[in-house]
């Protein structure tokens, strides 16, 4: 009831403020300081299957998100950028905070240091509500698997018990308190480190070294390991972007390594990932697709052993068509599958495969105010809840 009242309030506010929001993003100090912001409110039924949860507390389909961005150009070669966000008013946290340096003004080389945007894949950098024609996030970038950095399954059976329970994972080794697992790639937290980009058109090469991993970006290092990630993007003709990404980083926390037998604690446990993405647009059409393969190394502690790295394969295809000025239809299909392990009961995928289909109709009341309404279908081969569908709405304001 409270959510419904809030939704109605936001909707009314959006309509009332629409003319005022004709304002451009605020540029101050002669254009050296730029300020922007985005507020979104999404409403859907309770997600009993935790299909859309981004952590233990919050579903992306029941989310009030308010964020502010700033960019201050200290000099032509140095800018400071930041973003703060609050999700459902829990806390206000820095989403991005970094320095952008262009060492040579006439060379297209940029260095970014701090809490930086992810290099891997295409979706994380357009995860803003205004850039997402749908309401949900791609499964690969949001759905919580049963992998944790600070807690470990001792056997394949421990892992199988957590199939489809990524929102609240508990294992016998390491931290005992239940906590959420990782997504394949976390798009709602950015990692900390340094990144370089070379070139812009038609070929762009980016690489980064960061504290965390794709699934577990971190502000502070928890294992003395670094992640190396890279992306090559090619824009052969206007409207077509092809990208390839790779990443490798140590993901297990010191606290988890400490509970392993000595012969296993000395090894390195990494998340590795490869990705391919494509975007094509023309006239009123926009089509995007991403393919991500990842694998986590896992110690084999007890029988039945987890004999090989735990792999996952995600595929996403989405399209948008503008049916009239300001009005669009969009759809996305997602699948996330997992490799097999051999448990006591026999071979089985180590987490429960997930399918998601979402369709959304959107309308821009104004350039800075959009309304979206859609339907999302989720299917999972495991967990307590195997299927759940949602009718979902979102109000979005940005400047």
């Amino acid at each position, binding site marked *: 009831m409270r959510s419904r009242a809030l939704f109605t309030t936001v909707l009314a506010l959006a309509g009332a403020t629409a003319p005022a929001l004709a304002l451009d993003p605020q540029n101050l100090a002669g254009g050296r300081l730029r300020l922007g912001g985005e507020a979104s409110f999404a409403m859907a039924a309770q997600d009993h299957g935790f299909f859309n949860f981004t952590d233990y507390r919050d579903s992306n389909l029941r989310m009030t998100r308010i964020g502010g961005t700033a960019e201050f150009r200290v000099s032509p070669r140095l800018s400071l950028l930041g973003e703060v966000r609050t999700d459902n008013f829990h806390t206000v946290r820095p989403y991005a905070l970094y320095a952008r340096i262009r060492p040579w003004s006439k060379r*297209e080389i940029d260095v970014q240091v701090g809490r930086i*945007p992810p290099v891997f894949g295409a979706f994380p950098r357009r995860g803003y509500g205004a850039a997402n024609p749908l309401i949900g996030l791609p499964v690969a970038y949001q759905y919580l698997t049963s992998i944790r950095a600070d807690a470990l399954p001792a056997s394949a059976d421990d892992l199988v018990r957590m199939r489809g329970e990524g929102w609240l994972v508990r294992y016998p080794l390491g931290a005992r308190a239940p906590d959420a697992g990782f997504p394949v790639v976390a798009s709602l937290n950015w990692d900390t480190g340094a990144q370089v980009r070379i070139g812009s*058109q038609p070929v762009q090469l980016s690489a980064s070294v960061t504290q965390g991993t794709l699934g577990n970006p971190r502000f502070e290092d928890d294992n003395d390991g670094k992640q190396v990630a890279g992306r090559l993007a090619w824009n052969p003709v206007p409207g077509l972007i092809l990208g390839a990404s790779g990443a490798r980083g140590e993901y297990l926390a010191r606290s988890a390594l400490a509970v392993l037998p000595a012969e296993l604690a000395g090894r390195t446990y990494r998340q590795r990932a490869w990705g391919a993405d494509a975007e094509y647009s023309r006239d009123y059409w926009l089509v995007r697709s991403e393919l991500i393969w990842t694998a986590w190394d896992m110690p084999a502690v007890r029988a039945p052993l987890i004999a090989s790295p735990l792999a996952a394969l995600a595929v996403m295809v989405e399209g948008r068509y503008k049916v009239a000025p300001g009005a669009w239809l969009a759809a996305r299909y997602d699948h996330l599958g997992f490799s097999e392990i051999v448990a006591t009961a026999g071979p089985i995928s180590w987490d429960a495969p997930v399918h998601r289909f979402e369709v959304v109709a959107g309308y821009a009341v*104004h350039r800075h105010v959009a309304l979206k309404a859609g339907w999302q279908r989720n299917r999972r081969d495991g967990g307590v809840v195997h299927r759940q569908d949602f009718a979902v709405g979102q109000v979005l304001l940005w400047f």
Partner: protein
Amino acid sequence: MALLAPGAGRPAPAAAPAGSGMASIRGRVEVRRAPGAHGARPSVAELGTPAAAAEPDRRRSVVYLEEAPRGAFEVPSTRGTMDQRNEAFAPYVLPVLVGTTVDFPNSDRTYHNVFSFSKTKRFDLGRYARGGSKAVRFDRPGVVRVFCDIHSHMSAFILVFAHRYFATTDAEGRYRIDNVPPGSYTVVAWNDGQARQSRLTRVPDAGGVVELDFVVD
């Protein structure tokens, strides 16, 4: 915004019949405030410095008669052009007559997607590449704010007039509106999204040149 609607284009009761002694209204619009650098959102999600875009000339103003003389409304359909070059619309402000068709060529190597959600004209031209061009006909007077759906920093204005008594200032801020019949007029200086100043003037029966300067803050 009071510009052009709904009173704009109404015949001015005080105007004499056209042709009795035409005059020119000319002068200069001095823009004292620093042109607002606006439009670009912080590029927080970028992996590096965004490509440099051309800065539109926001000092250009449009000067127009708030109410036009009788007989000023029979105007032929014309064509105008608003280019997309270096990730900026050129010109930044384009005054046109009702019935004008405006072409939007793309001169950049990237896609552009021109659109407007203005009440005067709501349109979306979709994405097209360099060398491509699409056109929109403007059938109602009013202000049309134009954007690019791909490049959020791109914006421009199209001012659609119901009469022909308007002029764009040159690089020095000078303007000239010709063939104005005798009568009393309110002359408006419009700059960067707003009617900044309006002044009352009288064109004498003998015609000639009426000097009228504006200073906008």
